């Protein structure tokens, strides 16, 4: 490109200012990427949730139980391939910080409902025959350095009074779906139920139904809720992704928060770079006039100014994205698996680049139009 030398020369005119502007782009894009990664971490559960699964919870709230006897009634509804039930086991491993979800599961049916969570058959067999057995997700096992055969103490204050439960780690599951959850810890429902006081026996946390056909979701969900309408334990049945979405909402409206922060960053950046470009153009009024006198068209001058701000945006934006991509794994480590997998996806990167270029173009627009409309005669008279 013939004009590139001019473009670059203009770019490096004020080095400190250039660095600062590039720096603001880098900082903004870093923040953007970071927020996007956190947001996608929260919504990943929704994205990878099975479309052929329904979650049945107590209509009042997820923390209210359902009777295990409901299972047989649910199974009378046609279109159900399998059903399992889970209980929340709010235990602590060594320290409160070491959070991971623990479920008491229906060992006969869990694997049929969640076929993507794969446990080697021999490990599964050991688990079935081990009252105190447990299965851990690969990520959680790796996080604590657990190996099959380890004995794992989990403290809980919820059930059976204070004290530690001990589990034998009989197996480790992997998730077939990319980005799928590998953090859960499974124990046997029977073992769990035995330890419950009499008035809490025979209760489960929620059911998960696997459908023969995802298209039946609405019908089956309606049928389940109809069966228990007006009973002591009314149910609320929704698809797994709808359930996951409402789960995420418990953390507050993350989407809204991120959108708000993102918008503030966007407008701040727009104002900062817009101002910088305006100053950059104003101080070279005479030069732009000379270019026009020499025969550069109004449009060429417009594109030169616009090109400059887009170039700054591209450089700064790329830097920010690179830093973010490098920082996210470090951050994921520091968060100790509190969030689902943190990854910088190509979509995030592309959105970030697009975001930077858009701000670059927008902020250059007004100064560029000013430069385009500049009249040589007036500009040279002003000097």
């Amino acid at each position, binding site marked *: 490109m*013939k*004009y590139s*030398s*001019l473009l670059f*020369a*203009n770019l*490096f*005119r004020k080095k400190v200012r250039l660095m600062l502007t590039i720096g603001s782009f880098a900082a903004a894009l870093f923040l953007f990427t970071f927020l996007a990664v956190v947001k996608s971490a929260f919504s990943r559960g929704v994205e990878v949730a099975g479309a052929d699964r329904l979650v049945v919870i107590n209509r009042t709230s997820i923390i209210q139980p359902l009777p295990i006897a409901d299972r047989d009634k649910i199974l009378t509804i046609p279109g159900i391939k399998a059903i399992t039930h889970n209980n929340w086991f709010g235990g602590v491993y060594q320290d409160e910080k070491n959070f991971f979800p623990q479920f008491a599961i229906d060992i006969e049916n869990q694997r049929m409902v969640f076929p993507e969570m794969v446990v080697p058959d021999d490990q599964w067999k050991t688990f079935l025959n081990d009252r105190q057995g447990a299965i851990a997700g690969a990520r959680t096992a790796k996080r604590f350095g657990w190996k099959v055969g380890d004995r794992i103490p989990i403290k809980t204050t919820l059930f059976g009074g204070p004290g530690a439960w001990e589990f034998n780690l009989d197996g480790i599951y992997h998730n077939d779906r990319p980005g799928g959850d590998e953090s859960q810890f499974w124990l046997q429902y029977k073992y769990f139920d035995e330890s419950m006081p009499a008035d809490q026996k025979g209760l489960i946390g929620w059911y998960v139904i696997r459908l023969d056909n995802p298209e039946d979701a609405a019908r089956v969900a309606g049928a389940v809720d109809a069966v228990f309408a007006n009973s002591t334990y009314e149910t609320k049945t929704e698809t797994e992704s709808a359930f996951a979405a409402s789960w995420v909402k418990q953390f507050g409206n993350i989407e809204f928060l991120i959108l708000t922060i993102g918008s503030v960053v966007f407008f701040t950046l727009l104002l900062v770079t817009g101002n910088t470009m305006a100053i950059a153009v104003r101080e070279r009024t*005479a*030069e732009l*006039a*000379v*270019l*026009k*006198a*020499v*025969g*550069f*068209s*109004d449009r060429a001058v417009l594109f030169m100014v616009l090109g400059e701000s887009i170039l700054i945006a591209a450089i700064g934006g790329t830097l920010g994205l690179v830093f973010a991509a490098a920082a996210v794994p470090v951050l994921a480590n520091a968060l100790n698996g509190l969030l689902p997998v943190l990854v910088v996806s190509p979509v995030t990167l592309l959105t970030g680049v697009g975001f930077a270029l858009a701000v670059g173009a927008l902020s250059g627009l007004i100064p560029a139009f000013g430069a385009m409309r500049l009249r*040589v*005669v007036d500009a*040279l*008279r002003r*000097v």
Partner: protein
Amino acid sequence: MVRVDGSGSGGALIQVRGVDKNYSRAGEEIHVLQSLNLDVDKGEFVAFMGPSGSGKTTLLNLLGGLDVPTHGSITVDGDEITHMSAGKLTQWRARHVGFIFQMYNLIPVLNAFQNVELPLLLTKLSKSERRQHVEAALTIVGLAERMNHYPRQLSGGQEQRVAIARAIVADPTFLLCDEPTGDLDRKSADEILDLLTRLSTEYHKTILMVTHDPAAAERAHTLLHLNKGVLVEGAHLDQVAGGVA
């Protein structure tokens, strides 16, 4: 030949006919140029003098296609520029006009070579052709060795010579100089004037120059005075210019 009475034969390179230029300021019309006529033949070297605010710069801007007259017409080499669109006029300027300003107006972030190359970027010339032209222009102004210098590394006189190289590099039809020595000391000014004189005599450039400097005016073939919106002929200096050449 240079005429100011509108009696040119029609073969003159530059023909200005009945040009008015008015500005309105605070609701009041100022008539800067009034029914101005001018014919300049090819190869002429004309100097314009006149009191400050008499409209010399205004006239050069009109001749260079940077501004349009309120009334009247300007024809250069057969093209009437007064009715060209802004875009056309820009292209016309690139091909026909070389500007030299009092403040040199070089681009500070480009070196001498790149500054001179600017007008050529608008042409179809290849990179090596551009290099040849730039080097030739810088050689004419005596700064071939300085082509990698930036404006701040050059003296005022050298900067103005680079500006002249930029003005001539695309071989324009005529040069417009607005007080080219106005910001220079006597010695540097004389060097610039020597250069302009050479461009006139050796390269037969058509030059129109506004100046306050009598020594500069002496170099021109023709001296015109701008007063109260019209041009009047000053002393004919053909002999003086011939003597210098």
